[in-house]
């Protein structure tokens, strides 16, 4: 059902931008440490949103709120609401595992499973019952690897371990693995910070392709990267959302002094 509504939303995209994810009064505490303060934000369908800010500003923490990964950390308390397709994922009747199927995640360090390339992609869809073993699964694996721009490089060695690939390839494998679960939203936590410039370029090109189908939220330390790929950019500082606007506005004409200082490198 949710899938249908999201399709409808996508068709309405031309009319106006839809908020795929709505964050309302989000507060997060690590024990007594108040790490995120009253975040309010709308993240749009088929757009790339970049989260920037100095280290420790809470942008990764914020990202992990969107698929309830913070539930895995002890002593974390979250207040507020995160609506995905108008449903608050922090409602009592929501299964956090199901949330993570709809909101995929790519991590800073490429972390393929120490299994074959094929199994890396096929494992989760098989477990979720999206496809059955055999031809159906082969098709999905190929489709996902093609989408991640990795198919031509690995089609002859699907049985080899995923860890045998280069760093950039591993990261694209992780993206393929995430796409294979057919999420609506993809979260990327500094996906290129461990990669060389050429791999980074490939991943960025990939993101621009993927946004046609998914809503992408990316945390990055690389301001140029945000400038290159993001439609929207949010600047975080010490757990506050300082400014959130279209990327161009943030970089050329920021409204807040702090944002300007950070962008121009005068900060800190």
């Amino acid at each position: 059902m949710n899938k249908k509504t999201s399709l409808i939303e996508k068709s309405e995209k031309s009319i106006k931008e839809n908020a795929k994810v709505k964050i309302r009064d989000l507060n997060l505490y690590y024990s007594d440490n108040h790490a995120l303060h009253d975040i309010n934000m709308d993240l749009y369908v088929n757009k790339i949103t970049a989260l920037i800010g100095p280290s420790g500003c809470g942008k990764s923490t914020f990202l992990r709120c969107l698929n309830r990964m913070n539930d895995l950390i002890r002593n974390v308390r979250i207040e507020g609401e995160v609506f995905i397709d108008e449903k608050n994922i922090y409602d009592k009747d929501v299964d956090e595992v199901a949330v993570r199927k709809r909101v995929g995640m790519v991590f800073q360090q490429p972390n393929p499973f120490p299994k074959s390339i094929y199994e890396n992609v096929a494992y989760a869809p098989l477990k979720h019952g999206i496809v059955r073993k055999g031809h159906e699964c082969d098709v999905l694996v190929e489709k996902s690897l093609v989408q991640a721009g990795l198919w031509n490089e690995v089609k002859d060695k699907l049985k080899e371990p995923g860890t045998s690939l280069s760093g950039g390839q591993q990261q694209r494998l992780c993206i393929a693995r995430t796409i294979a679960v057919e999420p609506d939203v993809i979260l990327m936590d500094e996906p290129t910070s461990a990669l060389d410039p050429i791999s980074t370029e490939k991943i960025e090109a990939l993101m621009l392709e993927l946004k046609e189908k998914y809503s992408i939220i990316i945390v990055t330390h690389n301001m140029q990267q945000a400038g290159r790929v993001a439609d929207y950019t949010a600047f975080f500082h010490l757990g506050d959302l300082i400014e959130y606007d279209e990327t161009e506005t943030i970089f050329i004409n920021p409204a807040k002094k702090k944002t300007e200082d950070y962008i121009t490198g005068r900060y800190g």
Partner: protein
Amino acid sequence: MNKLKNTSDNPFYDPGLRKRHAQAKRFKLFSIASIVFAIAFLVFFLGDMIVKGLPAFQQTYMLVEVTYNEKSINSTRKAIDKKYRRIVSRAWLRDIPAMVENQPELMGTTQMTWVLVNHQIDQYMKGHYYKIKDKILSTVKDKQAKGEIELHFNRNFFTHGDSKIPENSGIKSAIIGSVLTLIVTMLIAFPLGVMTAVYLEEFAEDNRWSQIIEININNLAAIPSILFGLLGLAVFINLFGMPRSSPMVGGLTLALMTLPIIIVSARAALRSVPDSIRQAGYGLGLTKIQVVQDHVLPLAFPGIMTGSIIGLSQAMGETAPLIIIGMIAFIPDSPGSIFQAATVMPAQIFTWAGMPERAYVERTAAGIMVLLSILISLNALAIYLRKKFEVNW
């Protein structure tokens, strides 16, 4: 090396350099000395064992005429010529009726057969200390000159259980007892230990409860093993009424002892699985059980195996708790099930070490050699498994 001089044109001169070098050299020397010392001990120990134990793998046999008839079955001594009666082993004579029963065609015949001889004569043949009457000794020397008394491979050592007749005793029942005991130990300790480790490492909250459990597990690993024997006696034998001296009780007792080793090593193995793998799993919407079962456990498997096999070999060499539960008994026949009385290899070695006859000295050493070679094979297996299933990153 060039002489270091305090010259004004050397800005890198350090007045303490010579002292520092001497210190480093001393340190290195001490380390090497301790290694040499340790190796010397090991070589001495192994060498002594092998020199003492090797003779036990050979046993003296004598070619002699044996008469199989009614008389010799009723009174087995009479199967052999009077001259040789004191030379032949009592154990061999005792088996004559059984031999005839197995091979009825022997009945009524006289055959030249290689016959097991008395342990004193065996010791004489091996050049050890012996106590033989002069008359018998001259008979033996006669036979020796004719080449009718010689050392053969000692099959009895591997096909017989313990015996009060030294030349007839073997380690078979102890090996079988050890195997049965260890099967029970592994069947109980491995799943319990791994599941405990998985719970503590992957599921348990870090609260007072789990801390208490953790401390207790670590303490359990440090308890003197004989106390486990007392526990086994009190619980398994007295409370549950299991048969004493049985591999079942021994296995359970050793399982208690092995459990902490397996838990600690399995936890270390689980902890060494990088968290990024778990994160990757959760990020794909996998449940905790899927992540642990399909991604974490396979990666931890080599480490868990290594720890378990080391725990197993430790259990294999354990004697003290088994003495308490009666597995030190004299067991001539191999146990057929885990509920029959049995003994284990280290207990057998202990028994033999306390025997007065010289023949048992070499058997003690040979028993140690068998035990050590099994332990070394187990450790080699652990290394092999670790290498085989190790995942390269």
